[in-house]
């Protein structure tokens, strides 16, 4: 890595650490969005207890599906969202509590490059004005120095000086993303959150931007938090990766190790779902059932328990065959979907006076899932009782009943982070505990074992 350029005082003591030391230390971070309902509503738990460190000069990737909280996490770190709980330490300061001059110093040093270059640039400002705006806001140097700085930045990101007076609509997507990058770098930040910076770009242009980002990191000693849903991009650019699901970090570790030997069931499923650009590749795919639960009402136990293909079974269920268990899980999933559905007033009225509603079809569901099956009584009874409750319109009680009777540790307890692999890797799954089999022992094999 090249010598750090002279940066002057960053304004926050913790930012001046040496490359490789901990720059940011995130502990049990929570960001909830209040529902806005007058009564009752549950908050959306976008980030729900996340802990990790960011080392100076590294690129840490955050991957996950839409709605997993990765963007909220990035926005919370740079104080675009207010944290509900937990802390983000920079040296002795907690970013979530900063105010006044300290907050200004943090904002100077923590910048964001947004996903959509169409909407993140003001169409009525010239490129020069857009890149200069952060310099103006933070009273950086004299006006002449600012203009010189903008020209310098344009060159740095591969644009020409004459672009200074043009407008965003005159540029292509790749060039606009370069403008966004120049704006983020204007104040010489230490830490840059890259929120899906190449998702909107074509693959050949995407490669250009990724190369640019890596060059700038080498030159300026930047620390990146790289948010993406494209796993191949993350694999290429990140030193470490955090895999998020429903507001939780499921697995965190060095990129190559995590991709080649994923430990967490969710990581394994996610990696196996990525189509390889190789038509001869043999993929042992774990196709997940259903969709992620609502972050308003996450499962009580493990966040991934509703879809996990290697979920732990309760004690004494050995005589139940695999497909019956699958049917039980599908039944629970169906009840969850039903309990989430908002009932209209007329439907509630119909329910009250005992008329048939669209929720009365529960017998069909049960019939479809469980007839033609030899179901042991230990499963049959809870299912029948749950069906009774659901028929009365109380899906929540039905779900509780099923969870109580047929749930396992995955349903009841939130898993802890277990150390896995060789160095600094953690995975949040009950199966890593000594009394259970490892996820890799029960699921199909995935990763780069070829």
């Amino acid at each position, binding site marked *: 890595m090249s010598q750090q350029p002279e940066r002057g005082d960053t304004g926050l003591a913790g930012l001046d650490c040496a490359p490789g030391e901990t720059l940011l230390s995130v502990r049990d971070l929570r960001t909830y969005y209040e529902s806005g309902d007058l009564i009752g509503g549950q908050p959306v738990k976008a980030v729900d207890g996340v802990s990790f460190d960011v080392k100076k000069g590294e690129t840490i990737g955050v991957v996950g599906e839409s709605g997993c909280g990765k963007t909220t996490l990035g926005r919370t770190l740079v104080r675009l969202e207010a944290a509900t709980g937990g802390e983000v330490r920079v040296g002795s300061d907690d970013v979530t509590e900063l105010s006044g001059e300290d907050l200004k110093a943090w904002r100077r040093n923590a910048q964001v490059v947004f996903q959509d270059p169409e909407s993140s640039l003001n169409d009525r400002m010239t490129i020069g004005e857009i890149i200069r705006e952060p310099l103006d806001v933070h009273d950086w140097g004299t006006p002449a120095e600012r203009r010189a700085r903008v020209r310098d930045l344009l060159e740095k990101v591969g644009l020409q000086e004459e672009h200074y007076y043009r407008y965003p609509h005159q540029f292509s997507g790749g060039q606009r993303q370069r403008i966004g990058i120049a704006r983020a770098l204007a104040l010489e930040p230490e830490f840059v959150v890259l929120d899906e910076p190449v998702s909107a770009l074509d693959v050949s242009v995407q490669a250009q931007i990724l190369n640019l980002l890596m060059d700038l990191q080498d030159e300026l000693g930047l620390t990146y938090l790289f948010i993406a*849903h494209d796993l191949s991009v993350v694999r290429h650019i990140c030193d470490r990766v955090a895999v998020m699901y429903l507001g939780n970090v499921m697995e965190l570790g060095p990129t190559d190790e995590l991709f080649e030997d994923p430990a967490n069931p969710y990581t394994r499923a996610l990696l196996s779902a990525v189509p390889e650009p190789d038509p001869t590749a043999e993929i042992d795919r774990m196709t997940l059932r259903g969709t992620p639960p609502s972050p308003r009402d996450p499962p009580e136990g493990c966040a991934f328990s509703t879809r996990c293909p290697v979920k732990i079974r309760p004690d004494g269920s050995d005589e139940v065959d695999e497909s019956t268990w699958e049917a039980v899980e599908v039944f629970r999933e169906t009840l969850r979907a039903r309990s989430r559905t908002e009932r209209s007033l007329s439907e509630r009225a119909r329910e009250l006076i005992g008329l048939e509603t669209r929720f009365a079809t529960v017998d069909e569901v049960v019939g479809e899932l469980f007839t033609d099956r030899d179901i042991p009584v230990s499963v049959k009874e809870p299912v029948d009782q749950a069906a009774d409750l659901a028929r009365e319109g109380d899906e929540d009680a039905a779900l509780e009943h099923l969870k109580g009777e047929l749930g396992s540790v995955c349903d009841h307890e939130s898993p802890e982070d277990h150390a896995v692999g060789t160095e600094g890797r953690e995975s949040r799954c009950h199966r890593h505990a000594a009394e259970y089999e490892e996820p890799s022992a029960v699921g199909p094999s995935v990763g780069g074992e070829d």
Partner: protein
Amino acid sequence: MAADANATGVDERRSSARQTQSDDVDAAESADDRLLEVENLRTVFHTERETIRAVDGVSFGIEEGETLGLVGESGSGKSVTARSIMGLVDDPGELLPGSSVRFDGRELTDLTEKGYESVRGSGIAMVFQDPLSTLNPVYTVGNQIEEALSLHRGLSGIDATEKAIELLEDVGIPDAARRVSEYPHEFSGGMRQRAVIAMALACDPDVLVCDEPTTALDVTIQAQILELLSDLQAEHGLSILFITHDMGVIAEVADRVAVMYAGEIVEQAPVVELYENPRHPYTRGLLRSIPSTQQGAERLETIAGEVPTPNKAATDCRFAPRCPEAFDACEEVHPVPVPVEEGAEDHTAACLLYPEDEPRKAAVDRHAAAGDEDSPESAGSTGGDSR
């Protein structure tokens, strides 16, 4: 070599799956036995300043039960190709004379709007990228499927509802009996796309045109939808035109692949052949710029520059300005699709470097001669090229 043996194995499997040639096709009318045949398709859009040649001389065919992948970057004309096939090109766009789309031996380009309606849905159906904009937010999902059923199959009332539930079950929507009376906003993204596919299948089409059907979805949901499409294809013997920009998805779903660049198909080959032995410099560049294929590489290979917008009839190679292998003739001769070497009829590239086994001069002349045959007609028909 192990890789080769593997490749042939896959090839055989794929081609044997394709051997179900249809006897229903009216062989007398159809030039060959392809179910859908697109020939010299040119779709232009007239703007005040210029005429954009979004699709410029595209030809391909799809056999029964086959999946053709159409891949390219944004602006390459893939979606316009799909819309042209479906007869969905409106003013200021038009298909230039000489364009031909034949389905089951029947020419579609000269059909009236009414005539097209009978083809859409029952013959060829389309799945769009964004399910939310395909579905009408103020009608239930069931209503919308029933509408298609009543238009094309004359079903109504309880029959239509039952059929709609059955279709939703076919596409893997759990609790379909309740779901059928829900509105699109109550469905998740993946479920919506399933509902759209159910709608497309409502009238039992022979060809399904899928325009980026999984682009808006997460990878685990994408895997579900791809699995569903391949199950449905096997079950109904569907032919699929699968449009995407994702080289990974194409590798997984397609039997053959056509690569589009600036309104033209620059290379066409069976899928394994295309990935293992890409010939056109653009295809090579495209495959090389995918991050996952270059593990450990410090920098990604890129294709310099950006995709041009074609606004004139081509007199040169549209890729030449970005091509690392361009030579003088590339700026003077417009390449046409030719077999990449003698005998490789199923692998074509529109590039002056091919046929590879011909002397360069002879190859260039061959492209030039083919271009001359074409040009009077295409030059004449582009009267709208003025400013």
